[in-house]
């Protein structure tokens, strides 16, 4: 009886500790950024085009055990902005992102492994242009703590390269390069 009681208490404490260890953060669109960079082949490859997506949503679950952590991000593809309206229309049109058929870009993690104190190897599914491919990226924790409003925040950043042809955007290689560098910087606010 005594052994059963001690066992129950230990189990409850472990369960409580597990719950306490997992913290859920909502992606803050004001302080989150998704930038892209692509070589402008039509300009003789002399310059990169830079742009960003301004509408980002998602959830980050941070656990003391990284294997139990996860991230899910949804980007409104139509929120692309390169600073030139004609270029934005072209990139959002059927030549590239085709946002009227594929309005969102999503990433959903499948595994998180710690590399060291602040770096993680995150593997997940990136869905872009309606095609889902597995990717693995190295994510750096930029910082965490209470912000000036007293809210618990956490921020991560990663830069990686994708090939647009892997996501079905195979045309106009003489206009824009196949390789696109993405920088994702997201800050989450604890729920």
């Amino acid at each position: 009886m005594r052994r059963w009681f001690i066992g129950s208490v230990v189990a409850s404490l472990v369960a409580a500790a597990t719950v306490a260890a997992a913290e859920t953060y909502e992606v803050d669109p004001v302080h989150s950024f998704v930038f892209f960079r692509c070589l402008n082949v039509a300009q003789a490859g002399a310059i990169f085009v830079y742009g960003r997506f301004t509408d980002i949503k998602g959830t980050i679950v941070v656990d003391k055990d990284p294997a139990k952590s996860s991230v899910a991000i949804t980007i409104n593809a139509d929120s692309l902005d390169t600073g030139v309206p004609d270029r934005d229309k072209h990139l959002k049109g059927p030549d590239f992102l085709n946002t009227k058929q594929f309005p969102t870009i999503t990433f959903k993690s499948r595994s998180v492994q710690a590399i060291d104190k602040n770096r993680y190897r995150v593997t997940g599914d990136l869905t872009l242009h309606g095609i889902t491919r597995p990717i693995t990226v190295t994510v750096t924790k930029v910082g965490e703590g209470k912000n000036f409003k007293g809210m618990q925040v956490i921020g991560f950043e990663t830069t990686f390269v994708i090939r647009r042809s892997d996501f079905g955007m195979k045309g106009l290689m003489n206009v824009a390069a196949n390789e696109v560098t993405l920088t994702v910087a997201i800050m989450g606010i604890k729920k």
Partner: protein
Amino acid sequence: MTFLIKSALTLSLPPAIAVLTGLGFTLLVAKRGRQMLSHWLTGIVLTVGYVIGHWVATGTLPLVPHSAEEWLPLLALLAAIFSALDNLPTSPSVARTVWRLLVSIGAVAALLFPSAFLTIVAKIVWTIGLGIALTVLWLAMDALAERQTGALLPFVWSTVAAASSVALFVAHTAAISQLAGVLAAVTGTAFLFGLWQRQWSWAKGAVGVVAMLLFSITVNGTFYAELPFASTIFLWLAAISGWASSVLNGQRLPAWGQVAMQLVITVVFAGIAVGITVHKLGLPTSGY
């Protein structure tokens, strides 16, 4: 300019060579007395030419389409294959209309159902409406092809496809503009063949493919790029300018006058289509 010329040649030469070779083979078939087979083969040849150009332009030719524009080669093939029904001696005109309507509605459904911005009701309404429009365009083009042989119709189609290419480029889609350019190259080659073979009929084969491609390319531009719907309608009207010529009593004119009138109407309608697009969207600020 060198960039544009190089791109145009890269896109247009492979389909042009394929069409010229294929039409040469079809001519041999016709000369052996297989007229009906040659009609059908003409559509197949134009389809093969377009498919090659589509592959060169997009770098892809998937058997299972992922997006609306990827349906174009399959829809052209569908139109070409079903055109065999027109060559059946027992095929009644009602049956010809019905199979066109069914194929047209299926084609428009393939183009519109991938859209994420239309509700299911809107998709159904547009599919039925545009399916009927494609059937009418197809029948009208077919009837013209029964009357006009040789080079005139392919010249009209090539002019309309070229105008579509310009309008689509203004509507911020170089990729679909290139596909219209491929169609212009295919029909332009048919025009050169028609200059040589002045009695060559484009009915019961080629018409279905051209109607399907012109319609599908412009619908893609309207729904997924920014081609104004009014421009699209004028491009369709330009493709059947021969009927406008008839309405305006062009038959009273001598043969050369009828041809001139049809060409003027084609150019005017195509010009209006491009003009509406430029008026609405402005000239493209190239070089970004």
